[in-house]
């Protein structure tokens, strides 16, 4: 009798173990994406999501992450911090996601980063340009894939320093991104070219409906060149006003992402020519096999050309899959140890995730907007590659920013 009970208990225990094991095996690996998928920012964020989904499809076809099928859950933040944070919490608590990915809104990215630190869930930032994410407010659980304002500033200053301009005017969006980019460029430009002079500054509100009075006022001041620190949806109307006033023909100006497909494509054949811009990615450059294959695959899947967001989404997926593969198990701490300093292949060549600050080191391309017969829209011409070592702030600067 006693023997029998033992047998039953043993059987039950074995069964439970088996069920548990298969349950763990069958339980998908979950990636939770929170980003703004409605309104103007979706121009940028849709490509992050779609490239990541495409990469995940391939990862699943190759057996998933450590044998577990990868599932991607997306939530729309509507560019609102409270909505996005609630979605991130829901993904962690209810869906029990293993990884969080997002977002274009810097304030939300920083808020989710705080949450990720508390919950010990890795969070990959895929579009926010805030230098605080991997800088002053960086921690073990946050990773920044997109370039940040410090890197934009250094890359742009490197490029501008080579041009013969001395008297500058700064104009931009009156919010964090605008001021951070302008500050980043100006501080570094002054350091490497001390004889530059700042004639004045103009700051407009985000979503400014009419840039013409700003441009005419800047032209009246006759600077040698202008640094335009405007981002996202304001780029297009600004370039439109620049075209209407002939701004680009009178005074050269720099604008981050001016050469980026997402910015320049909506203007079609009617874009201002010769605007100096920087971007992490162009579908036509670098002209390598890896990039061509990436573009072809993306275009086949979605019927459109990939913009810079697609690169961020792709690299994020590669790091997640690569990190867990190297760790050999689905364990957050082991994953982070494995992914720190990892180099993954990408359409722009091998990209390293810097171990100290978890910043992906992407090359930056500086060029000018140019009309070519091949496309119905402008592209970036005369592209110069700025190596990531020259653009990213040194580890010492990060340590200083974190007060260490």
């Amino acid at each position, binding site marked *: 009798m006693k023997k029998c009970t033992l047998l039953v208990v043993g059987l039950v225990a074995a069964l439970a173990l088996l069920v548990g094991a298969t349950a763990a095996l069958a339980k998908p690996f979950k990636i939770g994406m929170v980003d703004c998928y*409605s309104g103007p920012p*979706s*121009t940028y964020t849709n490509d992050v999501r779609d490239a990541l989904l495409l990469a995940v499809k391939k990862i699943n076809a190759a057996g998933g992450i450590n044998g577990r099928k990868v599932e991607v859950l997306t939530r729309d933040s509507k560019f609102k911090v409270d909505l996005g944070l609630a979605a991130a919490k829901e993904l962690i608590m209810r869906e029990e996601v293993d990884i969080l990915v997002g977002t274009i809104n810097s304030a939300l990215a920083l808020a989710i980063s705080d949450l990720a630190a508390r919950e010990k869930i890795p969070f990959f930032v895929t579009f926010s340009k805030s230098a605080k994410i991997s800088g002053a407010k960086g921690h073990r659980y946050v990773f920044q894939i997109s370039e940040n304002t410090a890197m934009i500033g250094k890359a742009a200053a490197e490029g501008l320093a080579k041009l013969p301009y001395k008297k500058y005017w700064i104009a931009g969006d009156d919010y964090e991104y605008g001021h951070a980019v302008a500050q980043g460029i100006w501080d570094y430009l002054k350091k490497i070219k001390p004889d530059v002079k700042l004639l004045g500054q103009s700051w407009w509100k985000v*979503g400014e409906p009419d840039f013409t009075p700003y441009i005419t006022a800047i032209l009246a001041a006759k600077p040698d060149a202008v640094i335009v620190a405007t981002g996202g*949806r304001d780029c297009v*109307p600004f370039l439109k006003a620049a075209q*209407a006033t002939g701004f680009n023909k009178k005074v050269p100006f720099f604008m981050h992402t001016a050469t980026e497909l997402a910015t320049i494509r909506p203007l*079609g054949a009617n874009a201002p020519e010769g605007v100096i811009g920087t971007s992490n990615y162009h579908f036509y450059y670098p002209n390598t096999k890896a990039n061509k294959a990436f573009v072809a695959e993306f275009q086949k899947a979605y019927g459109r050309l990939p913009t810079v967001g697609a690169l961020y989404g792709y690299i994020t997926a590669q790091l997640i899959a690569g990190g867990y593969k190297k760790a050999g198990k689905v364990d957050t701490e082991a994953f982070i140890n494995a992914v720190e300093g990892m180099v993954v292949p990408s359409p722009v060549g091998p990209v390293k995730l810097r171990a100290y600050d978890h910043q992906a080191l992407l090359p930056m391309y500086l060029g000018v907007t140019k009309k070519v017969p091949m496309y119905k829209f402008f592209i970036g011409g005369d592209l110069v590659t700025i190596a990531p070592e020259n653009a990213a702030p040194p580890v010492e600067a990060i340590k200083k920013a974190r007060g260490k």
Partner: protein
Amino acid sequence: MDATSHITLASLAQQVLVGLSRTTILFIVSSGLSLILGVLRIPNLSHGSLYMIGAFVTYSAAVFIGGSTGFWLALIIAPAVVALLSLAVERGLLRFLYDREHLMLLLFTFALTLVFGDLVKLIWGSDYRSLTAPPLLQGSFDLAGLPFPRYNLFLLLLGPLVALGLWLLTNKTKIGKLAKAAAVDREMVAAMGINVSWVFAAVFCIGCFLAGLGGALVAPTQNITQGMDHTIIMEAFLIVIIGGLGNMWGALLGALIFGLTDAIGILVWPQFAIVFPYVAVVVVLVFRPKGLLQSTW
């Protein structure tokens, strides 16, 4: 270097002209708002949404027809579509609410902004659109050594025409006179055997037509996007308030103050230009809390 040394008579004159073209848009939109406010006594919060719809319809019509003709026709089609939409709203919903208190009407028009916002999302999606002006209005010409965009000149010429049209409408036509009378005493007008309900419908339609026209006119100069309704409705209300509620010429005066302080502020003190028009509003309200001109309320 002195920060203000670039302010010459030429640059100031140019800035005033640029400001005046912005004023045109502000005037067209806020005069419509003021008209409805004056006659129907409705603070129409959805006025901005109609402006947004006007811009989106302009985009679709211009792209659908194509070429320069597309743009010019869209300038007529879009306001007409907006006017028809507003007629449907007025006849279908709004006319049953005229006796209600202001708060109810305010809530109703607020609800409309949400409905219209979702309508735009449903039809055009959440992406923004961009429209190019016809070649005739592209580029700029030289004005005392400084560039002046052709499109701004077009707006400058159009502004007075719209103002004249509105003046003729309110002073020389029967509907205008009836509307004026209804604004003062609607019971009396009704007692004269006039169908006030239809006067209201017509006025609401005309006011919304102006919102649609404003949206159509800005379409080639900016992003056509969700959220463009919020910016304009706030500015339009401020203009109507400083001009005097319901007073059309007040709307013109308010738009002038708003547009010009904005443009000149940008030239004189570009770092803090954002605050200039709002400071002007505060100054006006401190000295004339009921607005510059006679309010019809």
